[in-house]
């Protein structure tokens, strides 16, 4: 590892709030990444009559398990439950997936928390905890990928504008202004009424309208830094434009860009949730926190819905902001721990 990265990591570790936020976040993220092993309506694996089955990954028909129907086995069906009861079965901690409807639940829905549903059910009989686990994973993955994409585009555009300046900057800046002026919500409504949105479709459309956040700061940093003496020194040395941009100017612009990324990350998660809340986002079969919020609003007598979504979102956004701040400070060379001058 290069010493600069070693120092960044040391700086990050010295920031206790960021470090603990990262630890807690990583635990939650790893847990939710294996959501299928924690909340699922089918066993993780089972040994039946000397044969190994992995229902979590493979769809088995009932006949394979010794039943009569050739269709896929529904492990919540009492008949199937009976079939596998003799074998060795490992069930997940929560026996519901995000879209499992518990037909046995006592009406009316939504059902309050009890021993079976730790955080109750929503108005269609889905387990809320299972939904939160899947929804957390979806939101974080969406937020992270959108931040990476949007930062990449934004930094590239800002860097080109700032470094070359002049006409490039003039034209680029006007294009960005026009693009920023588009009414995002309406465009999204129109786009989503033409195409059935999926995860990637949402990712692409939302990225298209959020990369401008970084362009301004990166452009400003490049405009400033391109006249620095060390950039001049590099040019005097014959270093090419691309190398100067990547090696000399970009690292100096990164602190400014990184200042924005935690907010970009959080706003992308919030935007997705908001669109889902307005029924303009992901379709019904996605485990979305926004849709759970819509249900909470429609069922004010069931506070466990709203409270649990609120707690999940608040925890997630707070942790991400703290981690983002820590990363930003770690990248700033002027904030150092125990550095000394040698005069």
């Amino acid at each position, binding site marked *: 590892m290069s010493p600069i990265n070693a120092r960044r990591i040391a700086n990050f570790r010295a920031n206790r709030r960021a470090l603990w936020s990262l630890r807690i976040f990583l635990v939650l993220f790893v847990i939710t990444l294996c959501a299928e092993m924690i909340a699922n309506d089918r066993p993780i694996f089972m040994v039946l009559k000397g044969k190994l089955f992995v229902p979590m990954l493979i769809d088995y028909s009932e006949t394979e398990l010794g039943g009569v129907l050739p269709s896929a086995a529904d492990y919540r069906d009492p008949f199937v439950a009976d079939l596998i009861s003799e074998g060795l079965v490992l069930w997940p901690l929560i026996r519901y997936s995000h879209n499992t409807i518990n037909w046995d639940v006592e009406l009316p829905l939504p059902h309050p928390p009890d021993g079976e549903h730790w955080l109750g059910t929503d108005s269609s009989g889905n387990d809320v905890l299972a939904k939160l686990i899947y929804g957390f994973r979806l939101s974080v993955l969406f937020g992270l990928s959108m931040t990476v994409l949007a930062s990449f585009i934004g930094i590239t555009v800002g860097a080109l504008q700032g470094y070359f300046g002049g006409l490039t900057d003039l034209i680029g800046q006007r294009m960005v202004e026009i693009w920023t002026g588009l009414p995002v919500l309406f465009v999204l409504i129109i786009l989503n009424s033409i195409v059935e949105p999926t995860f990637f479709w949402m990712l692409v459309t939302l990225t298209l309208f959020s990369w401008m956040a970084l362009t301004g700061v990166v452009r400003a940093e490049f405009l400033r830094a391109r006249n620095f003496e*060390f950039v001049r020194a590099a040019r005097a040395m014959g270093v090419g434009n691309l190398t100067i941009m990547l090696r000399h100017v970009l690292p100096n612009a990164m602190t400014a860009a990184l200042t924005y990324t935690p907010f970009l990350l959080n706003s992308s998660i919030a935007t997705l949730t908001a669109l889902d809340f307005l029924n303009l986002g992901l379709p019904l079969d996605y485990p979305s926190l926004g849709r759970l919020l819509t249900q909470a609003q429609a069922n004010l007598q069931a506070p466990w819905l709203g409270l649990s979504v609120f707690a999940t979102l608040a925890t997630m956004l707070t942790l991400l902001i703290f981690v983002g701040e820590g990363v930003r400070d770690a990248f700033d060379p002027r904030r150092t721990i125990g550095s000394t001058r040698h*005069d």
Partner: protein
Amino acid sequence: MTDRILEVDNLSVKFGDTTVVDGVSFYLNAGEIVALVGESGSGKSVSALSVLQLLPYPQASHPSGSIVLGGEEMLGASKADLQAIRGGEVGMIFQEPMTSLNPLHTVGKQIGETLRVHKGLTRRESRSKALGLLERVQLPDPNGKLDAYPHQLSGGQRQRVMIAMALANSPKLLIADEPTTALDVTIQASILELLKELNRDMGMAILMISHDLGIVRRMAGRVYVMNNGKVVENGPTEQLFTKPEHTYTNHLLNSRPSGRPAPLLKDNNEIVSAEDLQVGYNIGKGWFGKSEQFIAVQPMSFSVSAGETLAVVGESGSGKTSLGLATLKLIPSSGRICYLGSNIQDLKPAALKNLRRNMQMVFQDPYGSLSPRLTVRDIVAEGLSVHERHLSPAEVDARVVEALEEVGLEASWMSRYPHEFSGGQRQRISLARAQVLRPDFIVLDEPTSALDMSVQSQIVDLLRELQQRHQLAYLFISHDLAVVRALAHRVMVMKEGVVVEQGDAEQLFERPQTAYTQALLDAALLPED
């Protein structure tokens, strides 16, 4: 004279846990000019600022000492008392005239403000008083300048305005913190003349803070030499300069760049030459308007041979830096620039890139010219990564070590970052960066002017040594004639883009041909040697 204005006794200043000033005592009598001398970090500015309690409290603290100003103790004085004293009994002028005036207010308004605060004058009264003050500091066209904004004034004029503001309430004491460091030499001389005159005519005591021994010798009656937060020696100026007792004073006095460049070898070949070189900048170009040109360098010719230093001397705005940048083709120019006899003005970018390894540049600001995000190794190795791509990482390391050792740095410092080094060390890193490619021509743009005096002379020695060992050709850009004298074989004096005089250095220093060169030499306060 026993009328004591200021008595500082056993003063200590701490920033956090670091002691910056340690048991310093000094005093000023009425009408006296006293100088605090020292290199950067010696605590001289901090001592002076604590007289007016202008330090960033509560980070700064005074564990011990007393400051008695006009019979009153300043340490622990109330805010109201301090405010009455600041700008009232004591005036202060700062080093940087560019930033110490508010750019959004006119000069008249800013001077009037102090008058209204301290004397309760009306607008009209304060305006006429301000006019009188501007006349007093000999600002040309004082009436017109009252309504001018700071950006419309030159650096020297701004410093005069600062002095006028400090004089507004006829203070008994003026604290001048490096008042002329940011100014050109000829302007510097006239400002010093003005301060001396004010001291004589108004009987105002002046506490000067300076690192420039030439100025101190000319101005001050008594001198305190500071080093590492302590006063190491004090006494009347003449005595201190002729018979210094402390080793540090001795070191300071002998640290002015001295010596002469090494004699040239016979039949050395010409490295770089220029004919009719002209540099212009486009200004005020609108969408459809005609573009106007500001000519920074009027057509001029020069040549530099191996092992030779050609110094370009001039004040700010004389076009000397533009000339240096144009010679390396870093800014567009017209005319011929020849490297080893062939014109490089119209070379294709790829061919020019190959040439760059032979022509290097060292910049003025040791803080700005090194990328803060790269290690010393990466900075020095940069040129190799462009021009000698075939080298393995181990070979690159070896070349970097060689270059670092050549400029007097330790090889083990390779993985450190620029901010961990002092100004002089950074300038050595810049030199190593240029030297690693083994060029034969280096443009040195004021490489010593941001450094302390003793560090300057080390860098000058190093430059001379490198030149002799590798027969380097230098284009040395500077306003500091002491350094020029120690380095240059030939000198070119520029003023407003025009070469006013050029010739052999020895001859030019002994028998300047033009009035301008003479004025520069007079103002530079060169030591006799």
